[in-house]
């Protein structure tokens, strides 16, 4: 057992660090949850892509570097330590792409992945519906067979809480293709353009008013067969492979938390008493937990074929979502009155923005209550039921 990076990994780290030092914007980009900020973040994705850093773990054929899981962790550490912008392409890269790699056709990979890598196509997720939140299998939006344009599907229904949908280009989600089938059966995984005929997007302001998510209304929206992922009717299985990614390491990489914990530690060091002494335990706990998450990532990357080497994805999600809030709340407490409530324009404002972002963590991707049920039943083996 060891924690030594190999020479190739050290070279990779040095190369990433040098590129990021030369390219990361010196002034933070405007919030990606605004039209202006979205465009700026899309341009940043393009710059990352041209440097070869937007999707390091993908095969070279699709714009990646074929980086190993350990190299991916190294890149993420360097990325967030450099203070680089949040990834507006996250939904596509972390959620859709793994599903495509597992269930997509060669044609789909070749057509969809390169524009995803370059930021030309930015994806929104379309899972939840007004009556299907934590209980996703209750979803009602349907896709019906049509002979139109050589064969495909017509989407009807409503999706909601679709992150990035206010400004994104395309969306992916689950639709009921067999109206007779119940719950997890008879669902299909489909993709559609957000500017297609019959699509209406109504942005929803999140807690700070920014349109971070949206409702999507669908009326006879045509989807060709080429935009179904996997077999029709088998969408649940494909979606759950994505859900594992959403709850696991790839969506919230350890580098994000180790960088934030280090910034928190530096913020704490600059404090005077009594704030310094009062917050010491929480700052230390944030560092310890970020380090634990980083080490769990190394364990997972060391043994990618052995699922027991890494925490189950629901365990992960509980851990990082609560760490994210604790870490940012500790920073806000250190910033003190005034500074802690000003979301833009002060050096410390990044902490409030981060806190608002973190607050959604225990809710999205399956609430933490659902995750605790999953841990209890599937990890610990407790009897089903509530």
């Amino acid at each position, binding site marked *: *057992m*060891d*924690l*030594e*990076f*190999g020479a190739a*990994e050290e070279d990779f780290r040095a190369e990433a660090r040098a590129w990021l030092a030369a390219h990361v914007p010196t002034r933070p980009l405007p919030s990606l949850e605004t039209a202006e900020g979205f465009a700026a973040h899309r341009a940043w994705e393009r710059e990352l892509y041209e440097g070869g850093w937007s999707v390091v773990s993908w095969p070279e054929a699709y714009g990646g570097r074929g980086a190993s899981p*350990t190299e991916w962790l190294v890149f993420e550490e360097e990325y967030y330590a450099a203070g680089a912008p949040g990834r507006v392409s996250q939904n596509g890269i972390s959620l859709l792409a793994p599903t495509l790699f597992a269930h997509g056709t060669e044609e789909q990979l070749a057509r969809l992945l390169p524009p995803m890598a370059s930021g030309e196509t930015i994806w929104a997720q379309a899972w939840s519906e007004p009556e299907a939140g934590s209980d996703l299998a209750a979803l009602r939006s349907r896709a019906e067979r049509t002979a139109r344009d050589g064969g495909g599907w017509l989407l009807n229904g409503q999706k909601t809480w679709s992150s990035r949908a206010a400004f994104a280009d395309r969306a992916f989600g689950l639709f009921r293709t067999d109206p007779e089938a119940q719950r997890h059966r008879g669902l299909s995984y489909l993709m559609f353009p957000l500017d297609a005929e019959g699509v209406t997007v109504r942005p929803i302001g999140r807690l700070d008013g920014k349109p971070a998510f949206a409702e999507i209304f669908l009326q006879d929206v045509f989807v060709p067969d080429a935009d179904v992922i996997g077999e029709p009717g088998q969408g649940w299985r494909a979606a759950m492979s994505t859900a594992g990614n959403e709850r696991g390491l790839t969506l919230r990489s350890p580098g994000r938390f180790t960088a934030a914990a280090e910034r928190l*530690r530096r913020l*704490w060091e600059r404090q005077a008493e009594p704030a310094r002494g009062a917050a*010491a*335990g929480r*700052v*230390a*706990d944030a*560092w*310890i*937990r970020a*380090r*634990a*998450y980083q*080490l*769990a990532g*190394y*364990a997972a*990357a*060391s*043994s990618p074929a*052995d699922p027991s*080497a890494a*925490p189950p994805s629901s*365990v992960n999600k*509980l*851990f990082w979502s609560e760490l994210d809030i604790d870490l940012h709340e500790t920073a806000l407490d250190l910033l003190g009155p005034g500074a802690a409530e000003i979301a833009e324009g002060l050096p410390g404002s990044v902490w409030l923005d981060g806190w608002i972002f973190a607050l959604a963590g225990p809710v999205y991707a399956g609430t933490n*209550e659902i*995750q*605790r*049920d999953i*841990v*209890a*039943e599937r*990890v*610990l*083996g*407790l*009897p*089903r*039921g*509530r």
Partner: protein
Amino acid sequence: MRFVPGPDQLAYVRTVRRVLSGAGPLKAARAWAAGDLAPGRALWRSLAGTGLPGLAVPEECGGLGWYPAELAAAFVETGRAGAPGPLAETVALAAALARTPSWPERLLGGEELATVTDPASGYAVDPRAARAVFVLREGTLYLAAGQGPVLPSLDPARHLARCAPGEAVPADTGRLRALATLLTAAQALGAGEALLAGSVEYVAARRQFGRPVGSFQAVKHQLADVAVELEFARPLLHAAALAVRGDAAADPRDLPAAKAACSHAAHLAARTALQVHGAVGYTDEYDLTLLLRKARCLYTSWGTQDACRSAVLAGRPLPD
């Protein structure tokens, strides 16, 4: 990088588990509590027979080498089993006294147990069971010249006494403290895992309102939280073992971080076990409560939460 236990380590852990389960550790702990030390001593001889203390002593001193990761893995098992006695202290002393004449032979064979005062408290665990009692004070190790009254602890299979320093003994006290901290954290993690497993087993079987109490969400969620804490304490323990081994790639803060995280996870496991067991978890006679009580003792031994957090913030490798 290969940050997962290798096949040799896993095989060794299986051996330790087999020895422990064959020795009836909780029965030995009950006997130990009642003053009959023979089953506990026999258990230690069996463990020493697997080479356990030798993993803390270099080959040229008669041991097997310096293997903190394997030791930590073995002490997760002694913690899980609830094995009684100053086992961590004995192994930490074997490491510290590896180059001090006559001590390696005495401590490697499994015939002798030894103990040492935790510098933060001044108390030594189980001096009545130890042939050799030491005092660690301000970086110097002394043979104890005398001891105060032996006091019972919350864990009935643990007794404590304050000791007065006598003759100084040359020793690697840094290694002593590092190993005592690491192995205490390991035992805490093992005890926490056993408390979670015992709680899961109990709530799956215990029925109220016509269904297993483990099917209620309020119970499930508490146990899920314990599973999360234990899961993320484990990689810290592994990294701490590498830091103690002297690996430059480990962070020096990993040892105090691991002690804080393992102790915290075990403490949460104990509190949760108490709650989900209902009244039976509050009894002396229910065996799992031996671990419940031990978890609280390990929580403050060889590095309190505050000492560990301070060390993490100051970048120090040891809690004060």
